[in-house]
């Protein structure tokens, strides 16, 4: 095994800050190549930051990072080496796509590295074979267990045969058997590809024992570098964990003692919790499968198993949050009743996420819970002092919970859970993500509660050393309890050396597989020991990579029923509502008459109004007060008053007056009513039937009004094309806006950072499916316009189609800009809603022509694509324009595409900040 001497990575004086916190503080370290280097240290000390910088995923603020003989600040070098690096970020399968199957996930990564179909096929076959995933190739990633997910992540990382493999906590939260299999896999792989360098971060200190070299980190600084043997020798400790603690600065270790667990003195106490055949199913998936156990008063009972094995679900059933599908749970000797408020007072619960109000201070959190449990004021104050003192929270009292270090937050969370002195505590993975010292402190508190205060504690964990501290524990896997006993008995009954060994033995028995599974060696393609194949030439825009994103996005959309339904039927539903509802044909106007003349002439005048189809007459008005009241309540929109002596005046040839009152609450309606009334008045004046009694002046000139494009002036011919425009602005923008930010939130954006895919390929690749959806929406709405609303297409279909294509490309690009900018899905969603709804409904010419708007509104309107599409839509449908007449508008609209794409390109980063 020849080891190249040049280091794989060299960091010099690297400092990285996020806001006020310093993640890395002037780090200088050299990582040797060709071996397995481990970064050890608790959560939040900067391990992940360091790894992501080596992978090129994160922007380097200050200092130098050299990886594979080049400067990682240099974008050209990053682009050149990224095909040689593989990066598996923290979190189970964070860079995988949950809706895609195992094979589809690996395919996607293969495409991103530009591999042609034939190459992908044999590589995938070999990887699936050697990881033992082949039988599950078509299972979606979201339905995989933690261990399988990690194997899939490894397959995706190895598809392009990297020289440097970076693994960030690859085994956190995975059961011990899968964990062991994972390391076996890595070991076999290294035997085949000796030159490969591996950098791993881990929080399990026992794993670190077998690494070639270790970098111990704490608080953004490096404590020590060396092989496990060297570190242990230097600190004179037997294990890496002990060595690590010994390396910590003095003040952190102060007051630390070995955790002593006094024996549980209560013998044969009455059972507090009894679970009988407890089962929970979600659809076809059985999360908890006939679980039985009994927990006695005063004992610490542990639940041990990997993520997703059913621990949380079981605990939720015991707190009444979930109703069991089968079986029963007895709490304090009585059947559990979710509605029983009194039994809730006897239980304290701490959920996985610590369930604190992050926006409240420590004091406010404690006080709120004391109030909600109705502790009397005096007692609450005493309890508050007691908890604060006992849990060491004094110095944090007025800090927001979100600003607390994880360990303190965990203590506060426990304090909150026991503020009402419950008899029983249910703690769901209370220590995940907390460093070993804080974990010990937390356990001291638990032991005190159990032994000195008689509180029954039911706790779940995936740490074996915590499990050993329990009085009794249940080992869980895939929803079933494998065994329940004291830790000692469990170890002895399997003849194992450690609890972990015992657990693995139980798991092997349950799943029928062995730790060293018989799958073949990791096959290394082509020339196993030769130099890595030189990277293929990198075209500026690779269609294969672009379509990799298109194919993936399309598959994800097709498998997300909610988004798909919204995308397809949302527009149809709103088109129906808007097409019928948004109309300016004012009809059915209510009016009432105050006829104080009651003559033949007054009735003749009113006849004109009563014959109108626009108005609906209401019972006559009695007097002015009646008029006032009915106008006020909105019962009538107009009132006509004929004064006394109207007929007499007419006959006498004196000018007669008619009064009309119009409800001006809605100006458009009032103006329309005024127009109707005046038109009716004119009709009356020229009515030959009236003329016989009256001398009528001949009009001097006529006005021929021609309603162009829409002779009957029916609003459906304008509103249907504009509603279509509006919906094609809102929906594509909103769907697209979620697309990019979703990857940011779920973590799969990392694939953009560390693979050869370029920003433009990423953007366009993701945009194409949404353009497809928008075109389908258009097709549906077009048919609705023709057949439901009976609005014919009078002009050029080709121009309309081209216009729509350009338009939806522009509106999706509009959403893309917001998505590239926003950091959360919710912000993107509402950002898009605000940025599109107001301009679309008010400033794009839907109701008012843009040229009639005030200056600022005009600017808002002209910066929105819909302003340019309405003339195309209305022009093609109602105005009957030809292709040539519409081409100008299409060209104007097209300007948006490069501009918006460029903005997204600039806003989207190729590295994390």
């Amino acid at each position, binding site marked *: 095994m020849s080891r190249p001497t040049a280091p794989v990575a060299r960091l010099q004086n690297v400092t990285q800050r996020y806001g006020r916190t310093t993640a890395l503080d002037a780090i200088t370290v050299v990582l040797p190549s060709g071996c397995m280097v481990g970064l050890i240290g608790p959560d939040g000390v900067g391990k992940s930051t360091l790894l992501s910088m080596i992978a090129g995923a994160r922007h380097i603020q200050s200092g130098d990072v050299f990886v594979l003989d080049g400067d990682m600040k240099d974008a050209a070098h990053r682009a050149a080496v990224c095909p040689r690096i593989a990066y598996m970020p923290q979190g189970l399968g964070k860079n995988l796509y949950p809706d895609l199957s195992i094979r589809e996930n690996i395919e996607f990564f293969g495409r991103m590295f530009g591999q042609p179909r034939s190459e992908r096929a044999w590589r995938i076959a070999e990887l699936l074979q050697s990881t033992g995933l082949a039988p599950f190739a078509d299972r979606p990633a979201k339905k995989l267990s933690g261990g399988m997910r990690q194997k899939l992540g490894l397959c995706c990382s190895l598809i392009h045969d990297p020289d440097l493999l970076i693994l960030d906590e690859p085994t956190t939260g995975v059961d011990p058997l899968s964990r062991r299999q994972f390391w076996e896999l890595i070991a076999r792989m290294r035997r085949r590809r000796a030159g490969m360098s591996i950098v791993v971060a881990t929080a399990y200190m026992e794993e670190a024992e077998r690494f070639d070299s270790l970098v111990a980190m704490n608080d953004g600084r490096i404590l020590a570098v060396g092989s496990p043997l060297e570190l242990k020798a230097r600190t004179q400790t037997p294990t890496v964990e002990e060595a690590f603690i010994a390396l910590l600065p003095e003040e952190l270790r102060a007051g630390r003692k070995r955790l002593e667990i006094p024996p549980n003195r209560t013998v044969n106490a009455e059972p507090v919790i009894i679970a009988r055949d407890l089962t929970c199913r979600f659809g076809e998936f059985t999360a908890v499968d006939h679980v039985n156990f009994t927990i006695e008063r005063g004992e610490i009972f542990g639940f041990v198993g990997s993520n997703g094995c059913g621990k949380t679900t079981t605990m939720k059933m015991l707190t009444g949050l979930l109703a069991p599908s089968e079986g029963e749970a007895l709490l304090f000797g009585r059947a559990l009743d979710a509605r029983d408020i009194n039994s809730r007072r006897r239980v304290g619960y701490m959920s996985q996420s610590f369930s604190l109000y992050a926006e409240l201070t420590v004091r406010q959190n404690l006080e709120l819970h004391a109030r909600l449990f109705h502790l009397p004021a005096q007692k609450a104050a005493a309890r508050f002092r007691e908890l604060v003192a006992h849990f060491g929270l004094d110095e944090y009292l007025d800090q927001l919970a979100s600003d607390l270090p994880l360990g303190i937050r965990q203590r506060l969370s426990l304090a909150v859970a026991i503020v009402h002195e419950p008899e029983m505590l249910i703690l769901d993975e209370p220590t995940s993500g907390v460093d070993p010292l804080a974990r010990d402190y937390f356990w001291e508190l638990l032991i005190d509660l159990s032994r000195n205060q008689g509180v029954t504690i039911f706790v779940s964990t995936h740490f074996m050393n915590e499990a050993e501290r329990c009085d009794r524990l249940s080992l869980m896997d895939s929803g079933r309890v494998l065994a329940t006993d004291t830790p000692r008995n469990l170890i002895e009954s399997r003849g194992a050396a450690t609890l972990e060994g015992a657990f693995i033995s139980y798991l092997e028995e349950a799943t029928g597989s062995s730790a060293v599974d018989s799958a073949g060696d990791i096959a290394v393609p082509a020339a196993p020991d030769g130099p890595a194949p030189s990277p293929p030439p990198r075209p500026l825009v690779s269609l294969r990579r672009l379509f990799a994103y298109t194919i993936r996005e399309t598959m994800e959309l097709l498998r997300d029923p909610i988004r798909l339904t919204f995308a397809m039927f949302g527009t149809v539903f709103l088109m129906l509502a808007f097409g019928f509802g948004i109309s300016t044909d004012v009809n*059915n106007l209510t009016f009432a008459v105050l006829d104080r003349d009651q003559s033949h002439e007054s009735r003749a005048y009113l006849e004109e109004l009563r014959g109108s189809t626009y108005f609906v007459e209401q019972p006559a008005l009695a007097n002015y007060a009646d008029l006032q009241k009915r106008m006020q309540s909105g019962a009538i929109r107009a009132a006509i008053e004929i004064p006394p002596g109207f007929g007499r005046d007419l006959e006498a040839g004196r000018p007669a007056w008619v009064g009309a009152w119009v409800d001006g609450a809605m100006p458009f309606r009032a103006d329309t009513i005024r127009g109707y009334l005046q038109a009716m008045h004119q009709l009356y004046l020229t009515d030959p039937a009236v003329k016989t009694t009256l001398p009528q002046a001949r009009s001097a000139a006529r006005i021929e009004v021609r309603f162009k494009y829409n002779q009957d002036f029916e609003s459906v011919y304008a509103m249907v094309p504009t509603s279509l425009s509006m919906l094609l602005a809102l929906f594509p923008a909103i769907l697209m806006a979620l697309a990019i930010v979703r990857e940011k939130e779920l973590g799969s954006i990392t694939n953009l950072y560390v693979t050869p895919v370029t920003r433009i390929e990423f953007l366009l690749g993701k945009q194409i499916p949404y353009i497809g959806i928008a075109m389908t929406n258009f097709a549906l709405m077009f048919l609705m316009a023709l057949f439901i609303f009976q609005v014919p297409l009078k002009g050029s279909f080709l121009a309309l189609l081209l216009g729509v294509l350009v338009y939806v490309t522009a509106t999706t690009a509009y959403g893309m800009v917001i998505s590239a900018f926003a950091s959360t899905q919710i912000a993107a969603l509402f950002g898009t809603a605000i940025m599109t709804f107001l301009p679309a409904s008010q400033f794009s010419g839907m109701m008012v022509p843009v040229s009639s708007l005030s200056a600022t509104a005009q600017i808002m309107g002209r910066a929105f694509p819909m302003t340019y599409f309405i003339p195309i839509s209305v022009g093609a449908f109602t105005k009957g324009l030809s292709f040539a007449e519409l081409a100008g508008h299409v060209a104007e609209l097209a300007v948006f595409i490069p501009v918006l794409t460029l903005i997204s390109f600039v806003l989207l980063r190729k590295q994390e900040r």
Partner: protein
Amino acid sequence: MRKIGNIFWLGTKELRSFLHDFVLLGFVVYAFSLAIMAQANSYSQEVHNASIGAVDEDHSELSRRIIRAFLPPYFHQPRRIAERDIVPLMNLGKYTFTIDIPPNFERDVLGGRNPAIQLNVDATMMVQGGLGADYAQQIIMTEIQDFLSHTEGTAPPPVNLDVRILFNPNLTSAWFTSVMGIINSVSMLAIILAGAAIVREREHGTMDHLLVMPLTPFEIAMSKVWANGLVITVAVGLSLYLVVRTLLGVPIAGSIPLFMVGVAIYLFFACAVGIFIGTIARSMPQLGLLYLLIYLPTIMLSGSNTPLESMPPWLATVMQASPSTHFVSFAQSILYRGAGIGVVWPQFALVAGIGGLFFVLAILRFRSTAAQTT
């Protein structure tokens, strides 16, 4: 008493969380200030700066007077165009109106030959086209009458119609659109604030926590209603006094306190709907999409954009089931027409009733939502 205590203390927590969320806070400020101003200045209800082109084939005193009579703010100054350009320019959408004064128009008017002026209206511009055509006809007729009364004098018509517009004599759009803007913002925010409050608690795991404490779903839901309702009620009050009355100068006829009571009742409904969809949605994006499907039609069809009278009767009937429709209606009654409680109480009762229905539905669904976290 216990219940009220719980509701109160949970609500204060809600308020504290809200005040820490600067994005939401900014959103609220925007929705009740800039968004209102922008809508108030949209002129969506009136004829304003309508574009008009004029063809003068007469070149007479009268034709010039007619063209000069089109004035801002109703019309842009007419542009002189050639007769052959009428169709292409209107096709391009450059002009909503064109008038064509034929040759010898003045001579024919004086000669009593009753000549015709052509007024072309782009009938795809619904609001402006319809109202503007009436205005344009009146302007032309008045100008001709004026011209004639100087030369020969005409007889007054035997019957005159005197149209008086109540509540908004000059039919200023801003009076209407500013208040309707507030209504839109109220619906927009109340639903989303309450819905997001539920989904956020679920995503942070604190909902589980509340449900295992001695609290009932009623108390949890009610605390969200009062806290979010209070925030928006205050925002509405400030917006009415500062933005609508002071900045935009809109006179408010009716009782603002009575209106605020109505707002509070409507907020109960909107928050209840928000909580209800919060119990249906499994994630924030789903909540957002669901919300859009509810918000868009209820607002667009509530009568705050186009009159209810213009909908097909069946749709207008359907919209009677939507509290937003009643909110718009009683807001107009109170704020413009000065109506009192005697007039609007049936609508208050209806909104409260529908709100109560959603509230009960939300509470019934409350417990099942906890299961959806994993």
